[in-house]
């Protein structure tokens, strides 16, 4: 597994995210239809398709440049709650990673933490509120732990984050929502997965796969 990851990885992450969002567009909207307004997959797909178009036209020189491109595009194309939240996440990652040409394990864990903090700053959600934070916070914790470990690598940090995000997304199933549209539903939200947590898990998995982590087969 790579010890540090550069702009090519960041671009590959975004492209893989676009693919996985497109493939799960209907499924994500379906989750949102159950406890929201049914547009989450459509919204993200619109945003990531626009990112791919931009990446076809220009090649970011640093990870931060790729994150900033993603942030601006998501902010201007996605709308809804997810647009500003994901936009802020990528913007904070761009700020956190600055001019660096490559990111090592610690830098990646730091970037993920900055992203999460940005989402919390905008959305004021806590763990257990049944939002994307329920995926991001365990992901950040797992990434931080992995980065501090003896055999830390960029890839292992991202793999740890992805696995934790997936478990975190699952953990939203039994919850009542306290933020976002699902909060209007009260107890009726129980038994449904939060769409933003689900998409966060998909996107973090894409990051790990772009780093060549196990499971990045295709």
């Amino acid at each position, binding site marked *: 597994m790579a010890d540090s990851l550069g702009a090519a990885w960041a671009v590959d992450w975004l492209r893989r995210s676009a693919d996985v969002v497109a493939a799960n567009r209907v499924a994500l909207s379906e989750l949102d239809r159950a406890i929201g307004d049914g547009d989450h997959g459509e919204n993200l797909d619109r945003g990531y398709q626009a990112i791919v178009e931009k990446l076809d036209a220009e090649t970011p020189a640093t990870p931060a440049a790729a994150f900033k491109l993603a942030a601006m595009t998501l902010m201007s194309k996605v709308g809804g709650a997810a647009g500003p939240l994901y936009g802020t996440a990528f913007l904070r990652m761009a700020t956190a990673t600055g001019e660096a040409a490559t990111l090592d394990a610690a830098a990646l864990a730091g970037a993920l933490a900055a992203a999460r903090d940005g989402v919390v700053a905008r959305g004021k959600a806590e763990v257990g509120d049944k939002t994307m934070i329920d995926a991001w916070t365990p992901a950040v914790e797992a990434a931080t732990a992995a980065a501090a470990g003896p055999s830390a690598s960029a890839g292992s940090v991202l793999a740890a984050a992805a696995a934790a995000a997936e478990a975190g997304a699952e953990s939203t199933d039994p919850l009542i929502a*306290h933020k976002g549209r699902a*909060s209007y539903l009260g107890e009726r939200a129980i038994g449904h997965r939060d769409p933003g947590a689900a998409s966060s898990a998909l996107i973090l998995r894409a990051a790990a796969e772009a780093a060549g982590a196990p499971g990045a087969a295709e």
Partner: protein
Amino acid sequence: MKKLINDPKAVVDESVEGFGLAHAGLVTVHPDPLFVSRKEAKSGKVGLLSGGGSGHEPLHAGYVGFGMLDAAVPGAVFTSPTPDQIIPATVAANSGAGVVHIVKNYTGDVLNFETAAEMAQAEGIEVRTVLVNDDVAVEDSLYTAGRRGVGGTVLVEKIAGAAAERGDGLDAVAAIGQRVVDNVRTMGVALSACTVPHAGVPSFELGEDEIEIGIGIHGEPGRHRIPMENADGITDRLLEPILTDLKPAAGDKVLLFVNGMGGTPASELYIVYRRAAKVLADAGLSVERSLVGNYITALEMQGCSISVLRLDDEMTSLWDAPVNTPALRWGM
């Protein structure tokens, strides 16, 4: 799903284009990024801007014109617009006296308008935000995203719009908008769900004999589901939480607004109005003004919402002030 559309991805662009053609004397459509602005506005007046997901027509673009909005920003269907639309719309609405953003309280709308307001302010435009959260179906607590903005939005836009038109300053326009928010409560019911074009399937499933009480305007499920009742019974169920929350005193003057969700005939709205007017009269309230029709919709959803606004003399006279927009017009 059968709809009078072409490409599901183009519904908003094509619809707003048609809207611009039909109301060319009143509005200008800016296609990319998409927003609608008023054709002739007095220079130096406070600008009024609103926006939100599409699918609620005539809200918001239908209220651009004299005495109401200076700009409207349509998002994708049921999806709040983005800052890159809101910012140029704010610039267009500004004629030097600043701009009031009227924002329905949904996380997405709040976040996108917040970002846009920050950036507009960075460009030197004073922005105030009025957050509309009139939906008593939703518990307003620390543990929710707060009450949704629904029917009351139309009343805020009209009354704040009249204040801006008569020359009130930025803070005064925002304050009157806030006063409307403080005095209006709304509750809705769905007899059927609606179908978002790109989804192609109804937003929820309702049995042949079920209705959904406390729905919002995005096809999201409501507060609870009950067996079908008659119009009087449903009206009573909608008014009860409104009055409990608004706590009007006997003798209070109110505006009664019965709003269609898009797929309900006007005749049924008047049957609801009839009952609502009686209930309010029985509660000792004086219905001074009324509005009945499709003013804030959820695509072709069948159902309605009832809003009650407690009026004071200033609100009443601002309500009565001339307005000339595609969807609301009087006095000129």
